[in-house]
């Protein structure tokens, strides 16, 4: 099967899932007594609607091709960085460092990915930006809380730019026998991580009893976690035909990315609790901000990228 028909089949499958989900939400809303507000059903309907839009945008980028996908994730990085920076307790002395993140580091990272320069894009932010940002901040001369402030800015760069950029970086991998199909690797990663989030939510809502981390995220339960990880791993294994992996390898990869995704959700919840907010933003109706949707992808993408690169790709 060609990469083209595999992509169509995958998006067709996602569309079918969304149609079923929309029907279930419609049926739940109809069964609900009228006049009594139900925040859960309302939120569910909003979430599904937002999923339609997100899937449509992704499908459009896939249809246009490689460069559109890179541009889409550059925009996602921008939105994520804007949300992250908004919640940082930065001061005037950080203004240049923040401006450098937005207007130098972010475009540079995506240009490096666009030009296939693995040797530089994989160390550009952890090495060069890591050293350059505190220099810029130090030149402003404000020393109070310097360590905390610069660590915040460095974190913003790693989370919102570096980690997110490892999704489109999958396009630069040279995998023998998989030429011209790297977009499907992105589809695999994003689909497995997101379906795992959705399934954790569904399993948790149906059978959830024991809270897994009540202080971080009251909605996450042991039942949701196990059910979500097991079923998402099985789905990942079943998608081996769009990847360069065997069914067993695809299952193992799916297990790694769902676990990383879960941990990412926990870590980002801890950051939100610390900053005293429930959501990162309001960009995506029903979900919160860009970071609320991307938190699990952010933690899964770099690991998935390096595992795939180490075990399956050749230099080139």
């Amino acid at each position, binding site marked *: 099967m060609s990469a083209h028909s595999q992509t169509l089949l995958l998006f067709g499958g996602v569309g079918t899932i969304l149609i079923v989900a929309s029907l279930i939400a419609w049926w739940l809303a109809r069964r609900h007594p009228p006049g009594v507000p139900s925040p859960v059903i309302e939120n569910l309907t909003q979430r599904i609607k937002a999923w339609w839009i997100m899937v449509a945008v992704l499908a459009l980028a896939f249809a246009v091709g490689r460069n559109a996908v890179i541009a889409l994730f550059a925009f996602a990085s*921008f*939105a994520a*960085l*804007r*949300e992250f*920076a*908004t919640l940082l*307790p*930065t*001061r*005037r*002395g950080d*203004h240049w460092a*923040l*401006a450098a993140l*937005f*207007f130098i580091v972010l475009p540079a990272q995506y240009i490096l990915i666009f030009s296939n320069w693995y040797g530089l894009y994989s160390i550009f932010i952890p090495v060069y930006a890591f050293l350059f940002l505190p220099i810029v901040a130090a030149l402003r001369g*404000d020393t*109070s*809380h310097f360590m905390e402030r610069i660590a915040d800015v460095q974190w913003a760069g790693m989370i919102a730019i570096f980690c997110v950029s490892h999704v489109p970086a999958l396009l630069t991998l040279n995998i023998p026998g998989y030429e011209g199909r790297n977009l499907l690797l992105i589809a695999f990663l994003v689909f497995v991580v997101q379906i795992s989030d959705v399934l954790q939510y569904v399993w948790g809502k149906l059978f959830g009893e024991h809270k897994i981390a009540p202080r971080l995220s009251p909605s996450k339960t042991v039942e949701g976690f196990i059910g979500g990880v097991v079923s998402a791993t099985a789905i990942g294994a079943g998608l081996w035909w769009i990847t360069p992996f065997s069914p067993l390898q695809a299952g193992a990869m799916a297990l790694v990315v769902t676990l990383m995704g879960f941990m990412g959700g926990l870590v980002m919840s801890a950051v939100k609790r*610390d*900053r*005293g*907010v429930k959501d990162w*933003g*309001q*960009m995506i109706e029903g979900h919160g901000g860009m970071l609320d949707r991307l938190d699990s992808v952010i933690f899964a993408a770099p690991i998935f990228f390096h595992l795939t690169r180490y075990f399956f790709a050749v230099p080139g």
Partner: protein
Amino acid sequence: MKALLETLAAQAVCGFAWLVTGVRANWIGCVPEKRCRVYFANHNSHGDFVLIWSVLPRALRAATRPVAGADYWLKDAPRRFLGARVFRAVLIERDADKRTGDPVAQMAEAIDRGDSLILFPEGTRNTTETRLLPFKSGLYHLAAQRPNIECVPVWIENLNRVLPKGERVPVPLLCSVSFGTPIIIEPDEPKDAFLHRARDGLLAIAPRDAAPTPPDLT
């Protein structure tokens, strides 16, 4: 042709404001309504009224004019185009000694024509650590001359961090614009009582900092 250019410029300004600030409107104490209003807001940045203006529904935006300093908006051609044609600003002379027109009369005239106004009662940009500077009396005089008008408190959050005073490059950060409960002047209400009420109405919708920023030493 000219009208098209003005519409395009207005759309471009709103698009730019969204790209930088992702601005959201919170209608807390009232709903967007096509009626004569004075929106009065906290003032930290040159972009303040653009942000209010861009979150208003398009029909209201066309009939809402910012009150702004003539010295700033008449300085050069691009500013004159934006100020006079796109925002249709009511330009007042800020220097009380040199001015020829009466600012309150100018504002009242705009209201009589059916327009709403955006006003910054602090009179100047607040660059201090306090949340609000003392209000100037213009808002009171306007309300006393046109007593039916609704004064809507508007709190702009975070824009001062986007472009702190003295910086040239804006940093994109999320901003919000909150609209509070409208205030209408009571018969014979004294100036201080009215301004006090207006100030309280504005502070009532200012979000509390979840984790306060450490104070600047500079």
